């Protein structure tokens, strides 16, 4: 699906269009895809310039992919703090706005406040975790780029961003490693 013009302009403003070309190699098994990845690394392609595309999670490192850093664990803490604050605010302000004085006890009744605050804390933590997962996964992605539907049928894709002068070398590496098809974005 084509990206709307305004989004394209926004994306270009954030990261200027690259001269690199995208190449996608399709492999039938993990071993061939991993070999192709190793060969690319050997040919001087930085590991940030290629990605494996699969239809299910492979054990970390099994394809020789780069280690991914993320800050997902921060999100639940921020969410929990915000949720707790909202819980305290809602329960305290409700009681102060409409005081129900019972037998000379304090207006703010702490045990029920704790229950609502607990739920608020958990809700905040979970909402922010989900936001974090989407954000850290770099989603939503409006343009899929070079892709093949066979990836969700069990094939492994190796997508490379290569300089124009490296293009033929990358294609050769993929073919030698056993790619069943190599596609380019031209």
């Amino acid at each position: 699906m084509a990206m709307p013009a305004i989004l394209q302009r926004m994306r270009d403003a954030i990261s200027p269009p690259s001269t690199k070309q995208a190449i996608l190699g399709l492999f039938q098994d993990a071993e061939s895809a991993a070999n192709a990845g190793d060969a690319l690394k050997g040919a001087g392609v930085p590991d940030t310039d290629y990605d494996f595309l699969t239809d299910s999670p492979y054990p970390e490192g099994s394809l020789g992919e780069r280690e991914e850093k993320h800050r997902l664990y921060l999100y639940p803490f921020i969410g929990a703090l915000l949720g707790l604050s909202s819980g305290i605010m809602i329960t305290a302000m409700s009681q102060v706005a409409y005081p129900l004085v019972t037998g000379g006890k304090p207006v703010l009744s702490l045990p029920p406040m704790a229950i609502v605050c607990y739920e608020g804390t958990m809700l905040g933590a979970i909402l922010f975790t989900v936001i974090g997962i989407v954000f850290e996964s770099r989603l939503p992605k409006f343009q899929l780029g070079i892709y093949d539907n066979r990836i969700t049928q069990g094939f492994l894709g190796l997508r490379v961003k290569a300089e124009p002068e490296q293009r033929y070398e990358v294609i050769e590496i993929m073919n030698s490693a056993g790619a069943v098809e190599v596609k380019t974005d031209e």
Partner: protein
Amino acid sequence: MQEGKVLPAAQINRDLLRSILETPRWFWPVVSILGLVVLAATITIGIMINTGLGITGLNYKVVWGFFITNFVFWIGISHAGVMLSAILRLAKAEWRRPATRAAEVLTIFSLMTAMIMPIIHTGRPWRILYWAFPYDFARGIWPNIRPPLVWDPSAILTYLTSSTLFVLIALVPDFAVLRDRTTGWPKIVYTMLAMGWEGNPRQWKLQIIAGVLLSALILPVFVSVHSIVSWDFGMAVAIKSWHSTVFAPYFVVGAVHSGVSAVVFAMILLRWAYGWQDYIRHEHIDALGRLLIVVATGWFYFLVMEIIFGIYGLEGDELAVRALQFLPGEYGVAYNVWMIVFVGITYFLPVILWLPKAWRRNLWIMSAACISVNVGMWLERYLLFVPGQANKQFLTFTWNDYLPRWPEALIVAATFAFVSMLMLLFSRVFPLVPLYDIKEGDILRTEMQIGRRKLTATFRED
């Protein structure tokens, strides 16, 4: 030992997306029948709101009857999702894979159904808004946060939101499979839902962490929800047999008991309806059967404790309620007979059926045992709530009994039709067995030769 065989990804897609890409002949007639039952109940709710709760069997003593029993029952069923998905995911139990999504979806639909019950039970549903939420700024009316009336919505809405997000996040990779397998407007919808998922290592890494992290975060919510539901009763000092400190864990374990049984039955139905024999296998049902023996026994322990706690204090009016529950009936309904039936069909019958391995692998026997548990658990809630309100005391005339009338019976029956209909409709548009989870399981499986035996083993990454 693992059973089954490693299947190619294309076949997994074809088998598990069959419910979406092809419509079985029975699908729309079944959904229509269920829809008609739901429609009849909706009309009845309309009549009840217009006429008042007087058309039900509720009366000045027994104010919580079928509706609240059904509310607690569906909240209980909703605990299956987290029990199966979160605990088994954290424990890295391999046999969880085909069951997790159905369990999570059942959680969402049963929670939605449960929420309807107290709302219609109020008789004036629109008032719920300003009882529970601080919104009526103009009149300066604010909710009283001290009773469980406010705790319940806060817990249930947290659980519903969390469970829905949990399911949606896990569905994203499967949306991508559907995006690649569909055409026309379904493709546009699935493309939007997939959000540009491509399945790179970063996305998979976060998806795996998401499963574990969200499981760990939802678990405390799961425990709190049924604890808070139990406090709807446990905090009512005036009603004997309700005011018990053991209620929270008793309710949580009971919820897991009925919820997991419901999931087992749903899985057996799905296996039969969509021909998922290669995915929902006898080994999975067997493992769930073993788990259920432990859960059922835990529940039985709390049941006995609840009764002992009630009797141990030797308070006259508490003993009167217990007499109503356990001794031969002297008025109206014979609760003691129902108590025997309930304990029999909730614990003794199913546990006997779950003990032999051959019976755990017989889907007819497992279905019967799981239905038996759920009928029993519904009865359990009824027998827990109604006798207490009858408020029988020696030498008083201030007690009354409860007999449900047709509107309650129809609405309760329709809730089962409603959940079944929603599950079927969900299976028509989204995969009920997680595709990537099954494929991951197959990647990690291998055959090992040990001595003279060849075994199927699954590797687990720590």
